[in-house]
């Protein structure tokens, strides 16, 4: 039987970031992952490191997201130095375009509500009028009336990020097992026995980072993980010369020059097909925003499934019945990669989640009645 300090179930962005962080803390880590049949949000997402709208109504989430965005520059540098794979992270700030006065007012109200979360100075998020937006993105269409702007927003290549995390893990005391779908997790003395791919692994701790698989696995170690899929579709164009200096929440230009457009929110169960209805709606919105996009060809499109909790905020928890079993779930695994590797993993290494994460346990989903 193979023994590790920690067994991480799931090798997507969440599992890989936590595993990399644990390996950096000096732990021996095994990552058990499924094969190509799996649902893999980490291979199909949009690549934003996005702060401006996160945590309206949940200040702990706003702070946690901001912490990750603050960690990202150093984290990206560390990963590049460590592995030679730069995640192409840029933090030029980000824009959320508005097409009506009502939309601008709604963004203004959101900024106002969130103003004090980061201290009396706010966090620099503000409304820009059309003229100010034009100074940043000269090629906007006539329907863009303004935008909200945050200096903390940025974007990265999710595929390079994932590859970098896996490379960093392999370089240290991490072992990755593909085609090892975890079937059973059991208590074993002070630790856990995990059965996967016909083998048995033994770990002092176990971290469930299996995305949509966490619901089923959680039940085996006393964790309630009510995650469900939420489909998103994305379009990608041919490469062009650099034209967009910063990302918006639905359009961004990658380091390679392609322009990504997205992303829909569709309650469609485990269906990962893309379809012309949503594709044309995404394209039409993109062309309304940046009319010149009409002349740029789309070369690929796809759909992927987000990992959603009932209220959309992350779920971090250590099992009470099975201490040492943790679960990590979120729908912004790119944005939170910095925090997962550099803040969450050290907590897991110490065996306890910090006070700042107490708002993210599943207890919040319980209905209370007298």
């Amino acid at each position, binding site marked *: 039987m193979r023994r590790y300090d920690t067994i991480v179930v799931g090798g997507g962005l969440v599992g890989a970031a936590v595993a990399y962080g644990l390996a950096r803390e000096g732990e021996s880590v095994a990552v058990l992952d499924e094969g190509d049949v799996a649902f893999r949000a980490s291979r199909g997402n949009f690549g934003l490191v996005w702060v401006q709208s996160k945590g309206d109504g949940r200040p702990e989430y706003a702070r946690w997201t901001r912490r990750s965005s603050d960690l990202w520059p150093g984290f990206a540098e560390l990963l590049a130095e460590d592995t030679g794979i730069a995640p192409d992270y840029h933090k030029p700030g980000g824009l959320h375009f508005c097409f009506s006065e009502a939309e601008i007012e709604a963004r203004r109200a959101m900024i106002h509500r969130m103003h004090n979360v980061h201290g009396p100075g706010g966090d620099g998020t503000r409304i820009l009028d059309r003229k100010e937006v034009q100074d940043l993105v000269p090629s906007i269409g006539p329907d863009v009336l303004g935008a909200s702007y945050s200096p903390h927003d940025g974007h990265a290549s999710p595929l390079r990020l994932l590859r970098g995390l896996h490379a960093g893990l392999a370089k240290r005391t991490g072992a990755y097992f593909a085609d090892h779908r975890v079937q059973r997790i059991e208590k074993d003395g002070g630790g856990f026995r995990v059965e996967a791919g016909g083998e048995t692994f033994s770990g002092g701790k176990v971290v469930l980072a299996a995305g949509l698989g966490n619901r089923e696995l959680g039940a085996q170690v006393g964790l309630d993980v009510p995650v469900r899929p939420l489909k998103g579709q994305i379009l990608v164009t041919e*490469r*062009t*010369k650099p*034209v967009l200096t910063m990302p918006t929440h639905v359009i961004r230009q990658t380091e*390679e*020059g392609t322009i990504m457009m997205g992303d829909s929110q569709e309650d469609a169960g485990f269906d990962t097909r893309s379809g012309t209805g949503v594709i044309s709606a995404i394209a039409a919105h993109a062309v309304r925003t940046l009319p*010149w996009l009409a002349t*740029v060809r789309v070369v690929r499109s796809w759909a992927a499934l987000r990992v959603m909790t009932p209220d959309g905020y992350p779920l971090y928890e250590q099992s009470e019945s099975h201490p040492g079993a943790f679960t990590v779930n979120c729908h912004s695994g790119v944005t939170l990669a910095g925090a997962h590797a550099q803040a969450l993993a050290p907590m897991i290494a110490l065996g306890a989640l910090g006070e700042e994460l107490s708002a993210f346990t599943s207890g919040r989903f319980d209905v209370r009645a007298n």
Partner: protein
Amino acid sequence: MFERTDAGAGGQVGFFFEGSRVEARAGDTVAAAILAHGERSVRTTPASGAPRGPFCFMGTCFECLVEIDGVPNRQACMVVVAEGMDVRRQEGAREATP
């Protein structure tokens, strides 16, 4: 280099490559006509600037990108030459805005 192995039955078609008139055979793809003309590279890559030319001839590899009649990034192997066509090299990535 490439040589035609038969005289062919089709007629001649003239198009422009980088502004110079090139004679092709009717039915040639733009890629075939350019290779037959003696050019090996039709573009440079956006990544490194290295020269590239037609490779797969079946629309898969995207190595043969050229600008045709003002439209950038067209696959030369998928377009049949037409009289008077204006074909230019695709130097790196296209401009985004017209």
